[in-house]
């Protein structure tokens, strides 16, 4: 497969240009609501408890009891062991259960072990699985092996949607991000995702733009729509709106939808809620006016 070069300086300049868009009033409110509907509300800690997952699920279904007209988030994202808890807590709602798999976050396990991981998540009822690629294999230059592993996970997923995490912070360049995006899409990803949130360099506007351009080229060539999920480091409503601007102006209207765009985030939701309250009341409310899930 031909790799496309990416000009880092020009890409970053283009990505920064989206931040000059000025969003006011109705546009801001509508954008904030859309952002909520695209959130994969995430908890991926060693200390995660069943109670914490139940709490997050409630928040996912109804982000704020005092705000009318607020959509549920798109999904709750947990470790495989907690998929069952989330599944029953979300029963009857539109919120999906996503599970990180394949020895998340490092991917440092045999393929066999990683596939068992996928199977457990799917068996427990995960609607979506977020896999990590083996960066060691990628960086060693064995790209076909990475593609084959993605296809193997794809096959193990069954009906579940597959998000492929590239962990862009470990790939080293935009050229590599572009090449890995093209490869993951070719290998059958439904979504491509930037990061685990477990390494210092997570999602950025620049990296996300490179991935959106890969999605765009694939769509223009084949007509197939692949989704995008930046994850990690997006905690302010303002930044999330600028991501939305970038999606709107790069991929157009069809991608302004939770089926094709997600935010992987834990603290973003509350900032969006505070901003909506501010838009409605004209004043900032206290941070304790929104619930901690």
């Amino acid at each position, binding site marked *: 497969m031909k790799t496309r070069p*990416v000009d880092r300086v020009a890409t970053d300049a283009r990505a920064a240009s989206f931040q000059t868009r000025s969003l006011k009033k109705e546009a801001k409110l509508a954008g904030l609501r859309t952002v909520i509907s695209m959130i994969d509300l995430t908890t991926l800690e060693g200390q995660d408890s069943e109670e914490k997952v139940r709490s997050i699920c409630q928040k996912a279904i109804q982000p704020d009891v005092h705000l009318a007209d607020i959509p549920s988030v798109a999904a709750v994202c947990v470790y495989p062991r907690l998929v069952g808890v989330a599944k029953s807590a979300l029963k009857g709602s539109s919120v999906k259960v996503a599970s990180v798999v394949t020895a998340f976050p490092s991917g440092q396990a045999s393929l066999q072990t990683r596939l068992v991981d996928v199977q457990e998540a799917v068996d427990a009822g995960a609607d979506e699985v977020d896999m990590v690629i083996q960066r060691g294999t990628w960086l060693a230059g064995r790209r076909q092996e990475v593609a084959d592993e993605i296809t193997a996970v794809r096959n193990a997923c069954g009906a579940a949607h597959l998000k492929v995490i590239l962990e862009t912070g470990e790939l080293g360049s935009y050229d590599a991000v572009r090449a890995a995006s093209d490869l993951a899409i070719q290998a059958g990803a439904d979504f491509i995702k930037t990061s685990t949130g477990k390494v210092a360099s997570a999602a950025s506007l620049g990296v996300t733009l490179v991935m959106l351009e890969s999605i765009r080229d694939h769509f223009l060539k084949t007509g197939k729509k692949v989704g995008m999920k930046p994850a990690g480091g997006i905690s302010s409503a303002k930044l999330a709106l600028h991501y939305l601007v970038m999606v709107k102006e790069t991929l157009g209207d069809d991608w302004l939808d939770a089926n094709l765009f997600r935010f992987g985030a834990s603290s973003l939701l509350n900032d969006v809620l505070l901003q909506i309250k501010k838009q409605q009341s004209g004043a900032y409310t206290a941070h304790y006016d929104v619930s901690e899930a």
Partner: protein
Amino acid sequence: MNPTLKFKDAWGYSPAPETFAVDIQAQYGLFIGGEFREGVEGKLIPSLNPATEEKLFDFTEAGSADVDGAVKAARKALPGWRRLSGMERGKYLFRIARRLQERAREFAVLETMDGGKPIKEARDIDIPEAAKHFFYYAGWADKLDFAFPGRTAKEVGVCGQIIPWNFPLLMAAWKIAPALACGNTVVLKPAETTPLTALRLAQVFQEVDLPPGVVNIVTGAGATGQALATHPGIDKLAFTGSSAVGKWLAEALAGSGKRHTLELGGKSPHIIFEDADLDQAVEGIIQGIYFNQGQVCCAGSRLFVQESVLAEVSKKLQLRLETLRIGDPLDKNTDVGAINSKQQLNTIQGYIKTGKAEGRQYHQGGTGKLPKKGFWCKPGWFEGVQASDTIAREEIFGPVLAVMSFRTAEEALKRANNTPYGLAAGIWSDKGARIFEMARRLKAGVIWCNTYNRFDASSPFGGYKESGFGREGGLQGLRAYLEEIS
């Protein structure tokens, strides 16, 4: 199957107008000898807001007596100004630069209202770059002895400066800053459709106590420019504008002993090779031709695409074009504003007609409803253009791109250089060796590689052939305003 992206308004942006209130007088006089005065003949010209066609204010048309008065004021101020130490002159320039920064929002709004450019561009480019020019040349004022080692430099004298309407304040800064740094005095004539920011700049000169007569500003149209250019009392003329006027000036000044520099038109080529980052190349093309509605002397108006990626680049270009927001220039989300004047709009529309009549297919883009009044032209591009087409040879000075293809680098070079102009060029390739080879052989004063329309006060700008001569900006920009004595 031909999948395409939809850019309708699934999520529309609400209006986001710049609300900074500005004060525009009903009438402006001429700035001569440090104060505003009425014209001898008392003739007024209205200045329109090209986005609404409403009159913003009246300004004075300077007749030859007024121009004479301005040149005399500049002559009178010359001995005092040139005797000031470089450091003292520099202090005035620093003050002007800082004042421009302090009043940046005001200047941006005025520039947008008078000229039609998007507030985003006035705010992010025109005004900050203008301030940068004053800062940059302020730094040179006390270091002129080091600019050209082994030589002693002294000022030229009284400089006549005629500037265009596309970057009114920025062009004023390009002209005035180096002239003053070198110890010259100035008579500046802004364009007749955009005198507002130059007049506001005159107020800045008052605010910073610039000695009277060091800069004089005479407003008016062609006749005023002619009176200034041919006035026997000026030692140098600097002109930025059309090649036609530039040629006339060169003839008129021949034998007069006056120095002159001309920065004229262009038909600058972009060359995209198949190995380029095509997405960012398209971004550069868009910047290159639709920036300021294409009313830029170095606009990248000819695009050569390697044949193997022509279809892909064309598709990406059209999709990107559809996301450009056209409309109210004061809206912070506007990408394409109004054309500067009715006359310029007619010129652009004439070329679009000619291109179609010569058999080329025209594609337009731009999103947003055009206001009922005002001078508007949607951004567009011609497909399948041939080298001999009018639209491939003549400067349009509007948001119109001519797209052509090539197979080999040699062919691209030959065709890119096949123009009477030579102002700028853009090369898009991931291959360093190719970029250097092309840059060496392209005949253009400014060559951008994997970027376009990047300006900096420290970087010289100017052309080859009918794009003019002399350089502005940087160390080279000092040369036009200094006599070098060995």
